[in-house]
């Protein structure tokens, strides 16, 4: 039996699953320390299902906590930014494109060191070990405890960053080192940014994750803790502690994967309706479709693969106004104050939830407070909400063909009946905890993204075989059961503007968790 948990900004959701069956779901408010909310939601879900702590074999947590901390500039460490690359890149030092306040907050501790590799893996300059020794002493003197190391073409030559880390570690005790090749592919600036973001979150991740582990074990659960990775796969708590930045998009991906699981479909549009916004994503062959656009985290450019999601201002708390006989939806929302502000709770604001309750689609609060709403108004609002949603769905669709739509999230029942441009509208059971279910059913993944010289590898076929094998091995290393691992994505980007046999190959493999 496994428990999936989603720690969002407002709610912490849980789902208990056995053999891919949902036994129970629960929802509590998110707490500042993360772990007390997680504990209370675990207790609640076990209470509902009547199971005991001993039945649990794994706990999976998806969280936006770390990305939120970075976006809000909370609990960030000073980071030593060490780049191995000189004489290349001296005109564009680390942090050039970061917002000023953020650059100041993490300090401008920039060290540019000689060394680096060409795209074909040969050294263009030897690693300047002496400069690294000096750097270590300086970092020590400044009392910095987190370091990000990047190197030119490190996805091709991981050993350069590893060697640099070894030299620094020799002089530095109790310092966390993030290596850029662990958090990104080709594109030094974006990869380095991701490494620096990750390094700035080390104090937080080393506090939150062990606290979570301890709390779970004190609850009497002996099972391992996993965290959801951006791409919808799992990582061990120890890995996540080192690489908290890899959790940043997990919640959205989890909700798409959870919806896929609940509906049994592998291709559909997923509509996740929350309190303030609705996220619309695309399920393609069982996975979230990713966007190829450069993604920003807290105004810093990275190259993380993000799910392609369209967010619109429509949720359970969206305020409704009428002007010149026209219905105006939001864009503001009463958000988590729904239970004070909405009419149905005796408040003074007409919200989308009030309309859904008046229609009989949802049941909570005191319905009699809504008796004054006319049927005409209710119909008009419902129509306006549907029109907003229909136009957003149309934007995400790949063709004019009608597609199935799956409604999930706490506000899934705001919408009833058919939607234009869709083949069916599905309201799965337990849809309000789809993201927690997505965390629970997650698989273990492995990735490869680097340059291959097809000629040196003995042809395209052999090179791709090698890349696939590396991805599968990485998945097994991360805890996947050998034999269950399959390749779900393979892309090739040949190098252009120069005659070469070099191709940027991207492979993703996923498999079942060993102990499920």
């Amino acid at each position, binding site marked *: 039996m496994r428990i999936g948990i989603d720690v969002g900004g407002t709610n912490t959701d849980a789902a208990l699953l056995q053999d891919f069956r949902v036994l129970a779901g629960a929802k509590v408010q998110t707490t500042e320390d993360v772990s007390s909310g997680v504990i209370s939601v675990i207790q609640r879900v076990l209470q509902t299902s009547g199971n005991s702590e001993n039945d649990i074999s794994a706990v999976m947590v998806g969280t936006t906590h770390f990305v939120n901390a970075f976006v809000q500039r909370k609990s960030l460490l000073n980071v030593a930014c060490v780049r191995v690359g000189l004489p290349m890149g*001296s005109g564009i030092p680390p942090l050039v494109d970061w917002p000023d306040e953020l650059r100041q907050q993490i300090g401008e501790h920039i060290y540019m060191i000689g060394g680096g590799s060409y795209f074909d893996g040969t050294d263009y*300059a030897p690693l300047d070990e002496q400069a690294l020794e000096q750097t270590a002493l300086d970092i020590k003197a400044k009392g910095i405890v987190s370091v990000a190391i990047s190197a030119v073409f490190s996805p091709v030559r991981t050993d350069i960053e590893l060697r640099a880390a070894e030299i620094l570690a020799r002089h530095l005790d109790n310092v966390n080192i993030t290596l850029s090749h662990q958090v990104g592919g*080709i594109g*030094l600036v974006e990869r380095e940014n991701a490494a620096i973001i990750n390094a700035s979150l080390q104090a937080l991740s080393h506090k939150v994750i062990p606290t979570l582990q301890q709390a779970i074990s004190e609850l009497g659960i002996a099972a391992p803790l996993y965290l959801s990775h951006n791409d919808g796969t799992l990582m061990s708590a120890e890995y996540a502690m080192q690489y908290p930045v890899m959790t940043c998009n997990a919640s959205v991906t989890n909700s798409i994967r959870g919806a896929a699981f609940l509906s049994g479909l592998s291709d559909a549009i997923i509509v996740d309706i929350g309190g303030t916004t609705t996220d619309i994503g695309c399920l393609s062959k069982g996975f979230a479709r990713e966007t190829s656009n450069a993604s920003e985290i807290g105004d810093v450019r990275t190259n993380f693969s993000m799910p392609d999601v369209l967010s619109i201002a429509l949720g359970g708390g969206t305020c409704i106004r009428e002007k010149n006989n026209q219905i105006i939806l939001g864009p503001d929302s009463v958000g988590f104050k729904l239970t004070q502000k909405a009419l149905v709770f005796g408040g003074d604001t007409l919200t989308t939830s009030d309309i859904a309750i008046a229609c009989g689609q949802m049941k909570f609060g005191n319905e009699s407070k809504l008796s004054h709403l006319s049927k005409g108004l209710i119909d008009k609002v419902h129509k306006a909400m549907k029109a907003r949603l229909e136009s957003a769905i149309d934007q995400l669709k*790949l063709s*004019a063909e009608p597609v199935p739509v799956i409604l999930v999230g706490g506000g899934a029942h705001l919408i009833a009946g058919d939607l234009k441009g869709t083949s069916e509208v599905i309201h799965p059971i337990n849809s309000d905890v789809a993201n927690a279910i997505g965390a629970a059913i997650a698989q273990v993944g492995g990735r490869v993204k680097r340059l291959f010289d097809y000629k040196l590898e003995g042809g395209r076929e052999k090179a791709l075989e090698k890349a696939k094998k590396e991805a599968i091995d990485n998945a097994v290393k991360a805890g996947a059961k050998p034999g269950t691992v399959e390749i779900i994505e393979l892309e090739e980007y040949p190098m252009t503007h120069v005659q070469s046999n070099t191709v*940027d190959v991207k492979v993703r493999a996923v498999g079942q968790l060993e102990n499920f």
Partner: protein
Amino acid sequence: MIINTIEQIKDLTRGAVFLGTGGGGDPYVGQLLLQQEIRKGKYVKVIKAKDLADDAQVVSIAGIGAPSVLVEHLQSKDTCRQLLTKMEKQLGRKVNAIIPAEIGGLNSIIPMAVAAQVGLPVVDADGMGRAFPHLEMVTFSVYGSTAAPVCIANELGDSVIIEKTTSNRKVEDLARGICANLGAMVYSALYPMLGAEVKVKAVHDTLSYCLEIGRGIRLAREQLSNPIDGIMNILEQPKLDRHARILFEGKVVDINRETRDGWHWASVLMIPLNGKDDRFELEIQNEYLKAKLNGKTTCLVPDLITTLDLDTCEPLTAEALKYGQRLRIIGTAATPIMRRPECLAVFGPIGFGMSEEFIPLEDL
């Protein structure tokens, strides 16, 4: 005009992607380099071509190489400065101004970063008003300037001088070979010209046009509920010989990519959002060369084809296109000098191996 704010640089970069017509290399690295100079208190002074002294020495600075290498090597602060010094030694005189060879893509921003570093002015002009893949595809070359002497160097200081060639196409071939052997990304100083030559051979006012487009997109997005209207107002001004129109709105349903001889070839198929039966196609050889609606050509090189994100109106490079993207395709007329017969012979449809005759956008 002085360029000294981060906002101007970002506007320029956005305009450079627009004028890159899908290619030209992502100008982001150039943007960072220039940003770093501005941060240090440097600035770019932009002058009009007509204000150049007739005997002023002008040269171009351009990057040559693989975009995927550029994003790792980034740029050193010395490479292009040293190239300028080498060029001055070749010419036996000081350089007075820098001119971009192409205003689309990476090579529009690099000259400005160098100019900021060394304190030289940049000429508000270029050799094409867009981006092209070969270094002989510039008006400078069409009207008789030689690319050589060309100074080429990589970031490590390996350098080569091409003293003389019998054609500018040979410089292109040599430069590609040198590039492949120097780490796949090099920089060049080339097309030394005098002020008098620049006045007649260059495409004028393209840098300010680039900035105007980039700023126009930003402002339209900030201020208008329908930003595309604001952008079309800038692009479509018949009195200024500016013609533009929306060629298509729809989503990408198929992309067929391949690499031939080291170049990016692709075709993109799109369908409308309204469920109509139209088929729209884009042909790509590094840049967008041809747009077709239901088999009929609607825009042809050297006229400009640009892909914009349908919602944000952000211009996108061909390499960023993907299945399912919702786009608006804009056709913009090339400036009159680019449509002269002698220019069309080099970078009209025939220059890219197409049998079709060039027909101006406004007649299609």
